[in-house]
């Protein structure tokens, strides 16, 4: 809604779905989405700084409200990890799950910021394009999913050894028979490709779709009094429903992370 005169649905959508970019070099790859990076790093610093601040003064006596809240969240995640991962979860998997859950939840929650008001605020700050939700940027979800994919391969090799991992790739799930090797390898390749794809696209799709629906409601709200009324009601309803989606997607992303990392620790 920035440059009023040429406002069409297309330009409205395009405006809200354009990242603030910065070019780092030649070619399309060397661009950086400053809004995505800044928002995610800011949210990460806020949430993990908060956790750190609370945990630093943690008492083993009667906890205060703040500590009780953090403990509740952490124990919830610890419980989930314990039921899936059988090993020393405190060393890496559980804190990694906490990181994923808290960070993704925070980034998803930015979806509940009223898009047009935020756009006006950014406009006041002199920023024309700024997307508040880092998880509607496929770079973020792919970054997370690929990091976890690399961790998965790392733990596979660490736990089973390189030979053990290759043996697993060749001999499972169908059997040791050399005739079955190509099938096994094909199956595992499909699995290893599909894991990060489904992992990242599920989160991206849900949150991006949520954003698009907010935009559509916003567009309807601009069509007149009736549109504004219904747009308000629908927007409120969708936002309330979206609280569930935001949390659920963060939880699913975290659970899949734990499951993938547990599978990497277990030999077949």
């Amino acid at each position, binding site marked *: 809604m920035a440059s009023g005169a040429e406002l069409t649905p297309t330009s409205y959508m395009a405006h809200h779905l354009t990242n603030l970019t910065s070019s*780092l070099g030649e070619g*399309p*790859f*060397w*661009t*950086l*989405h400053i809004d*995505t*990076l800044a928002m*995610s*790093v800011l949210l*990460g610093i806020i949430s*993990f700084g908060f*956790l*750190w601040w609370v*945990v*630093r003064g*943690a*008492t*083993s*006596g009667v*906890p205060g409200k703040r*500590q009780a809240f*953090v*403990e509740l969240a*952490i*124990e919830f995640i*610890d419980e989930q990890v314990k039921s899936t991962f059988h090993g020393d979860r*405190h*060393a*890496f998997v*559980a*804190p*990694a799950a*906490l*990181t994923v859950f808290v*960070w993704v939840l925070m980034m998803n929650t930015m979806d509940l910021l009223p898009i047009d008001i935020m756009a006006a605020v950014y406009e006041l700050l002199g920023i024309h394009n700024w997307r508040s939700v*880092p998880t509607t*940027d*496929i*770079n*973020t979800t*792919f*970054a*997370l999913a*690929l*990091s976890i994919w690399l961790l998965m391969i790392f733990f596979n090799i660490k736990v089973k050894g390189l030979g053990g991992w290759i043996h697993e790739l060749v001999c499972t799930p169908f059997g040791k028979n050399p005739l079955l090797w190509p099938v096994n390898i094909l199956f595992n390749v499909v699995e290893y490709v599909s894991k990060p794809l489904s992992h990242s696209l599920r989160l991206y799709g849900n949150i991006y779709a949520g954003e698009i629906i907010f935009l559509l409601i916003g567009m309807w709200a601009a069509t007149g009094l009736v549109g504004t009324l219904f747009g308000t009601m629908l927007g409120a309803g969708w936002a309330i429903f979206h609280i569930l989606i935001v949390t659920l997607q963060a939880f699913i992303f975290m659970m899949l992370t734990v499951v993938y990392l547990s599978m990497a620790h277990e030999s077949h």
Partner: protein
Amino acid sequence: MNINFTLISQAMAFAIFIWFTVKFVWPPLMRAIENRQKTIADGLAAGERGKHELELASHRSADVVKEAKQRAADIIVQAEKRASQIIEEAKVAAQDEGKRILVGAKAEVEQEVFRARETLRQHVADLAVAGAAKILHREVDAKTHADLLTSIKAEL
């Protein structure tokens, strides 16, 4: 929507956040929680032990009370026995004393009777002597007739 360098920067941010959580957020809180769990477990165990000890103590105190009651009853029985014994002894002593007093009194009475009789006999003898003297109109020499007088006295 195109993949670009943002992905790598986000992955680096992710790695840093994971490292931070693994290093600084998770361990202190887990330590605090585990310490608290230990404290609670210790407290529960102590409570259980206390309950057990209370039970033992109540058993012991019941035993002590029972024993004390038993002993008190014994003491009462003994005291009653002793009291009746004392009464019995006192009765016996009183009877003995009574008998002794009675015997003494009897002896005294007898003595008194004897003495009276002696006196009486003396008087009678005197009377007899005086009578005889009167009859004989002469003095009876008591010394001379002492033998006679004594025999008369004895006959009386």
